[in-house]
């Protein structure tokens, strides 16, 4: 009988407090009153959606960074898996990092690591879409086509549900690339939400001395007074036709015209994009790379009030081991590429960025996310004997700020870094976490072009990562 009871309890998985509740609950039936206990429970659930942060910086490492050679090293894995690099100790007791990120080792305590990111999509465009939209692609297709049938970028959903408070600033800014693997990766724009929620996209290199925004730069022939004259003439003509009073659409277009002119003439937005206002020393510390200066720009934009900033590491996935530009797709020469290019860049920029943000107190109200669309295969040898193949089954993502438990390592991978040994975290969960941090209920619905209600995220917010 005891065995039976025991069995019963597990089978019913009725925790004690729940039974208690049941009793209390039925007691309440007499007065047809809701037990206070439940009421409290309910309020708590709603309060959970108070925003934790004002802004999000989403750093996307295009190509799929090797988790095994960076944050989740496996020195005890067999030869042929563990790789060339050695782990070194970090500011977190007992936690190691790759020897080629010595600066990072000193700031690791700022970050929360998710070691159990997992999905099953093996192609970059499809996996990249999953990562930046938070929705699983319909097919695992190397050239997944963007259309309104796919989901919008996380940032677009944010600008729909929690736009920035300053109308002179865009809610969602992305730069310095549109990512592509052959064809453009879906999920970077607003899809069915509509063009109003597209990111303010900047395809310029912030590391170049002539970095400027074409939209916000008038040609020399167009002085501000000339623009003013022009606007005056439009007003005069518009008054003749009375279309503005007759139509909300026309009046709306007029307001956009006003806003565009004020953006062109005001200095606020231009200042936010003006990296020359940063001390040279700090710019050097971020790294004089497209990525380094982009991260600095992200910080400036968030400071000025932009809600969501996405920085793409590179335009293309990889460089075939040839050095130069490109992403993290190290099918060839994984080790030399990581050691000579990818890790030095990361080790230059990320520690500077986190310390810069921390010293400015920005980590209280900003969530920083660092992730790629997949990890790399434990087994060494892919397109050349030194390469690692695609591996979405287990990889590491980092978050910091916004009340995330700094220094926490969430979950663990197995002894070769191949699979999570604890509950896996899907990109859906990461997007749900981002939404919740911004005070958006991940179960909120958006309407697609066919009028169907769709949840903004199918994931579960990782509340356990936050204090």
């Amino acid at each position: 009988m005891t065995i039976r009871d025991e069995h019963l309890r597990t089978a019913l998985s009725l925790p004690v407090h729940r039974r208690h509740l049941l009793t209390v609950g039925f007691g309440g039936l007499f007065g047809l009153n809701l037990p206070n206990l439940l009421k409290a429970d309910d309020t708590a659930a709603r309060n959970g959606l108070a925003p934790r942060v004002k802004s999000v910086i989403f750093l996307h490492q295009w190509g799929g960074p090797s988790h095994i050679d960076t944050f989740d090293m496996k020195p005890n894995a067999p030869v042929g898996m563990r790789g060339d690099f050695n782990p070194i100790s970090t500011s977190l007791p007992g936690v190691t990092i790759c020897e080629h990120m010595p600066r990072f080792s000193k700031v690791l305590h700022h970050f929360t690591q998710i070691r159990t990111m997992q999905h099953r999509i093996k192609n970059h465009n499809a996996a990249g879409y999953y990562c930046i939209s938070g929705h699983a692609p319909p097919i695992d297709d190397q050239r997944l086509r963007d259309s309104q049938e796919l989901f919008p970028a996380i940032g677009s959903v944010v600008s729909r549900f929690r736009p920035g408070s300053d109308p002179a600033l865009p809610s969602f800014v992305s730069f310095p690339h549109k990512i592509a693997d052959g064809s453009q990766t879906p999920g970077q724009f607003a899809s069915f939400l509509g063009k109003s929620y597209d990111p303010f996209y900047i395809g310029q290199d912030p590391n170049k001395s002539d970095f400027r925004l074409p939209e916000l730069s008038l040609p020399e022939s167009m002085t501000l007074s000339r623009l003013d004259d022009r606007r005056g003439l439009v007003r005069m003509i518009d008054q003749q036709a009375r279309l503005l009073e007759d139509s909300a659409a026309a009046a709306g277009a007029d307001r956009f015209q006003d806003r565009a002119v004020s953006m062109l003439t005001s200095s606020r937005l231009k200042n936010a994009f003006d990296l020359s206002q940063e001390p040279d020393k700090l710019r050097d510390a971020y790294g004089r790379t497209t990525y380094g200066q982009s991260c600095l720009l992200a910080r400036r934009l968030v400071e000025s009030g932009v809600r969501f900033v996405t920085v793409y590491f590179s335009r293309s996935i990889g460089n075939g081991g040839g050095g130069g530009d490109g992403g993290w797709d190290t099918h060839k020469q994984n080790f030399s590429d990581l050691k000579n290019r990818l890790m030095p860049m990361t080790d230059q920029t990320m520690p500077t960025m986190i310390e810069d943000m921390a010293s400015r107190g920005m980590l209280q109200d900003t969530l920083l996310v660092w992730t790629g669309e997949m990890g790399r295969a434990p087994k060494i040898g892919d397109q050349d004997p030194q390469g690692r193949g695609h591996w979405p089954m287990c990889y590491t993502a980092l978050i910091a700020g916004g009340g995330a438990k700094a220094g926490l390592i969430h979950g663990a991978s197995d002894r070769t870094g191949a699979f999570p040994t604890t509950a896996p975290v899907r990109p859906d969960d990461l997007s749900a976490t981002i939404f919740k941090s911004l005070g958006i209920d991940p179960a909120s619905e958006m309407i697609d072009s066919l009028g169907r209600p769709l949840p903004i995220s199918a994931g579960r917010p990782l509340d356990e990562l936050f204090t």
Partner: protein
Amino acid sequence: MRLSFLRNFTSTIRQRFCLLALVCLMAGLGAERADASDGVVSFRREVLPLLTKLGCNSGPCHGNLTGKGGLRLSLRGEDAQNDWLTLTHDAYGRRVSTSVPEASLLLAKPGGLMPHEGGIKFRNGDSSFRVISQWIVQGATDDPNQAKQLEQLKVTPGQVWVEPGNDKTVRIQVLARWSDGTSTDVTHLSVFDINETSGATISALGEFQADRPGEWVVGVRYLGGHGVSRLVFLEDNPDFVWKEMTERTAFDKAVFNKLKRLRRLPSAEATANVLMRRVYLDLLGVLPTPGEIQAYESDPAPEKYEKLVERLLDRPEFADFWALKWADLLRNEPKVMGSKGNWQFQRWLRDQFSQDVSMKEFARELITTTGSTWSAPASSFHRTNRDPATAAETFAQVFLGYRFQCAKCHNHPSDIWTQNDYYGLAATFANLRRKEINNVRRDRFDKHEVNGDVVVYVQGRAQMVQPRTGLTLDSKPPGGQMLKDDDHGPNAALDHLANWLTSDQNRQFARNLANRVWFHLVGRGVVDPVDDFRDSNPPSNPELLDALENAFIEGGYRLKPLARQIVSSTVYRLGAHPSEKYPATEADFGRSTVRILSAEVLRDIVDQATGYQRPNELAPNGQRAGQLAAANTRGEEFMKVFGKPERLLSCECERSEETTLAQAFQMINGQTVREALESPGNRISRLLEMAGHDPEAAISELFMSALSRRPTTTEVNASRAFLARSMNQRKAWEDLVWATLNAKEFLFRH
């Protein structure tokens, strides 16, 4: 074994209960049972619909593919038997306890007695609580073989006009008529959807409450049955007097009849110049030239507008413009069609509209043509729709105005379409094969790229497996007869579908196309969105839709006769400026719709107004943007920003009609506009020359070419003053032209 667990569990529970509470509760249940009309609660007819009504089995909740909180139900109760098993047998029977009904999770969780992520759905004493608890008390049985099937859902009132001063509350009643001849009131089990939730609410028991005058449609669903109730709460317009309007067409009669009932007044007719500009933009997508305007202005004939319409319908731009609209819908896009395929298909479409073929023939050709897409371009329909499911969705959306997509994975929630309808239609296209000739991909990993010719052919029998039931379905048009068993020739399924679609009995084909033509010319469908015909989205003016359908049929299913009749109507000629008193809205068609022009039209009229010829790479052989075959924007940001669709969906909604900040930037400072303004050979050189001896004529020429009207005195004076104080006349004229291009009158169809 299971039962003993259950007993054990309930006994545990029982010990913890106040005995009195139990006694009272049971007494309460007993009393409710006595109230019920026919005594026995049906799982399928009451409990399951109730769960649907409460939203328990909706997508975000337990109807989700993965369920919620460990409970997974079929979406909106599609799979009754499984749901019954899930509720009564799974989770060790905790969800439903017949011996201690009140311990059932099915009552305790939504009843607010246990924590429930989905919140409290009912309370003790609610009718919902009564239904579920009675069902449990009675043994929680399923009733799969019940003789009763739902035959009809009767919603009362079907339509009601509530006079001002009356209570703004209407009680909606839903009666289910069963196959055994009996009827039951199922109001408390039905789901109510209001088409526009602002200003109105409806209770679970069908009590509709409006906060303001207005018009609402309440969609009602119960057990796969649908119905609507249309409710109009009239405004208090005591001194309303109808202003007599010329009724030129049946459309006018329909629109004015409704306005009279609503006691709203239409706008006055637009001025000749506004109307002329409008009809050029709507029929051809171009502007009238200053010369054409002058000729029209000085034409003394009373029916000069009708004559103008005749001339426009015969112009080649008409075919270009309507081919463009259909190329969007039929997804003539470069990746799958290849550049030659693009041009061939565009050419074919253009020919159809230029010859004004019957849309019956047009549809039949598209559906039944097989062979090479280069030599028989109508077969391109089967090239762009590369799998049976996509072909079915496109077919339903384009030719019938139905959105079938929902029914791919589950029965349509707000329509009659089931998964069987979906896969029955898809089966029609299931035996189509495509042979790619000389497909040299620029990117070998890109399976979507097909750039040579494609030969479409038919092989085998048109059949498809319905994934949920696993049954193989033969070809069947939605709402039509299944293809006969002995008729399985090679093209039998396609022919059968085309015959069904274009038969005179199929009213939906004509209704859908007539509605689309009205949408393109007037700016809003009578059914809106145009491809969302369903019971719960009825036409805003049924009489008007009937009139359109009749006109289309009488015109031999041809585009031009219907277009002629629409643009000749009084309704089409109304101005955008609302009536001073009791103004009608755009949705009533009582005033002209103001909407932003499409990307192609806008770029073309920027060029036309400025007299600019785009370089060859953007305008091969001098073609306008509206004439180009492909969907790609050739790197022109302008086109993308103004919403040129990529032609990946068969939905009019893919063409964005939003106004955005990016558009303002394009018009203010974008390359497309700047090039047109600053090009040395454009109209501005001519205007400068004219202005040398007659500045007023130059200003007039500018306004005529950009805004299709003469400038007002204010505009002439302001322009002259501006020119007079400018140092650089060329720049000053650029500024003036820029101002006309950025005027809302220019950017919007009005």
